């Protein structure tokens, strides 16, 4: 159990674990949480893992912990850590196996009232159109050359095929493509796994959800994003599939020896790393960017499929069946960014695992229409509860390395969820509440039950109270497609 006496309150929803708590911590930990959320994580290893993250060589500023945090397997899920040269490292485990797991939100002008009679058909159409489930291959079978193009071009690869608009890529983090991807850094096993998997959702906690904009909090920002109260949206949650998993597996394996070569000692082998400017560190970054671009392309292809399904299932229900992109963000990523740290503006490698970028107003990398507003931040709740659209703030830049939470965060183990929740019963309960469900696995559905997650509304209240995000809209699910 975590000793709460080690926490020092520094703000309304901000707490600090000083670096002095442990000899090997290089920086403090800053936690964004309410007292209730702290109680929920007291008995798991989240904060210990945050302190472990603070031992990474070259760590600067603070390790940040978001209010949806839960324990991971080395780095906490909901954690952010920055490292800088000289001496700074990059750690694959601090980014995650599902590189660029993330979320894409599409919005429409189709009123729920008009679409309601066809929502079951829409759920079925999305389920049929977007390959999901275990070991599922997609409709695209890429050869190695095409896979290399995907890794280089990300969302732009899909645009070249007519599957993305200019606005789609502009309204994607990093314009849907990380520069510096190098296919040569990707091993043969990852290539083999990636070739048949583009355009697939996967399983586990990945999903496609149809939601209705239930309430708008910031009318100007919502109008800019194209979010209208009472109208439908589509949320896609998935990542780089087996391609990314294998890349991370390969580099976590090879870095077991790398840390010995560089004399790096760590409290957890999953935090293995390499100096940012070393050949090994450069290779991992190049491979990670390939996986990131694969994931951007993956969500773009799924969005293309979802658009077709949406238009087909709702034909005749509204004049305009367009699904336009609101934004696409990553929540497992390592990025080179400039931030102010200890009074100096420096380049850092920001590791975000279960945390999203949340840049504030004025950031040049946003599409022009979003620059005065700030970057959209998408926070999916658990299945059956709300999701949120927020925007990043100056507070996020000042106190959170331009970062925010990524979801609701788990509180219950999968084993406990399957023991206490019956998938079939849950499915009926969701349907009774007007949420159409298409699930490949009822035990898998039980694992993702709302009761297994934190209260997403409380998570959002914390980031808003802490000043690192602002509310734009609350979305309510009306259909869920899960693998």
């Amino acid at each position, binding site marked *: 159990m975590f000793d709460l006496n080690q926490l020092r309150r520094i703000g309304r929803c901000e707490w600090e674990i000083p670096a002095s708590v442990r000899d090997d911590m290089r920086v403090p930990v800053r936690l964004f949480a309410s007292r209730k959320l702290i109680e929920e994580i007291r008995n*798991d290893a989240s904060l210990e893992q945050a302190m472990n993250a603070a031992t990474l060589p070259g760590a600067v500023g603070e390790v940040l912990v978001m209010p949806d945090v*839960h*324990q*991971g*397997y*080395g780095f906490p*899920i909901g954690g952010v850590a920055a490292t800088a040269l000289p001496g700074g490292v990059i750690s694959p*485990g601090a980014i*995650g*196996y*599902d590189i660029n797991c993330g979320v894409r939100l599409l919005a429409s002008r189709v009123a729920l009232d008009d679409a309601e009679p066809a929502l079951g058909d829409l759920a079925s159409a999305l389920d049929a159109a977007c390959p999901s489930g*275990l*070991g599922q291959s997609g409709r695209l079978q890429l050869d190695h050359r095409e896979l290399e193009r995907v890794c280089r071009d990300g969302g732009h690869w899909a645009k070249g095929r007519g599957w993305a608009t200019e606005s789609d890529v502009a309204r994607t983090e990093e314009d849907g493509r990380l520069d510096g991807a190098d296919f040569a850094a990707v091993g043969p*096993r990852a290539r*083999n*796994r990636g070739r048949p998997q583009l355009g697939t959702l*996967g*399983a*586990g906690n990945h999903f496609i959800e149809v939601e209705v904009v239930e309430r708008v909090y910031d009318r100007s920002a919502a109008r800019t994003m194209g979010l209208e109260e009472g109208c439908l949206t589509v949320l896609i949650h998935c990542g780089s599939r*087996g391609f990314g*998993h*294998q890349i*991370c*597996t390969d580099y*976590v*394996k090879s870095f*077991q*020896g790398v840390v010995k070569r560089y004399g790096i000692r760590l409290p*957890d*082998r*999953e935090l*293995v790393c390499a100096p940012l400017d070393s050949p090994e560190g450069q290779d991992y970054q190049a491979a990670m960017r390939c996986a990131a671009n694969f994931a951007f392309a993956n969500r773009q292809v799924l969005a293309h499929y979802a658009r077709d399904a949406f238009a087909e299932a709702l034909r005749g229900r509204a004049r305009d069946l367009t699904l336009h992109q609101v934004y696409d963000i990553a929540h497992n990523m390592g990025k080179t960014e400039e931030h102010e740290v200890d009074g100096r503006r420096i380049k850092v490698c920001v590791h975000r695992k279960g945390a999203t970028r949340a840049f504030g107003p004025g950031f040049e990398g946003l599409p022009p229409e979003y620059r005065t507003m700030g970057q959209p931040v998408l926070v999916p709740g658990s299945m059956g509860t709300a999701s949120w659209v927020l925007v990043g703030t100056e507070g996020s830049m000042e106190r959170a390395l331009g970062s925010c939470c990524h979801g609701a965060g*788990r*509180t*219950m*183990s*999968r*084993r*406990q969820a399957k023991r206490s929740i019956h998938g079939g019963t849950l499915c009926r309960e969701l349907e009774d509440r007007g949420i159409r469900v298409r699930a490949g*696995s009822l*035990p*898998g559905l039980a694992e993702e039950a709302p009761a297994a997650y934190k209260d997403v509304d409380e998570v959002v209240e914390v980031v808003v109270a802490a000043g690192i995000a602002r509310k734009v809209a609350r979305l309510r699910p009306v259909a869920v497609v899960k693998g």
Partner: protein
Amino acid sequence: MGESMSGFSELEHTADCELEVWAPTMAALLEAAARGMYGLMGVELAGGARRSRLIELETADREALLVDFLAELLYLGEAEGRAYDVFDLEVSGHRLTGAIGGTLIASQTKEIKAVTYHRLLVRETDRGLETRVVFDV
């Protein structure tokens, strides 16, 4: 396998899966961990033609050997659609040699993304060898 001397059980973990595994020898521990992992995944094997393949791994320590062996099985599961239920393994130091036999996966209920090194330690106990391994799901 000497089931009474080897075994596995699932432990509680917030978002991922964790197995406790025990066995009299390292080779038996690898086999028990593989069976436990397939159990977590809900793998059911198809009938029909079986295939045997040789396996050879060498690592710096036995924890890495466990991770590499399970990762190999995960890769074969996705790349070939096969899982393995017959193990003839020999471990010398940190080197594994042997053969595994199996067939196509008929069905599976859970995806495991990766085997992790998190808090991984193979310990000598009264039961022989014990370890806990966390999987990313």
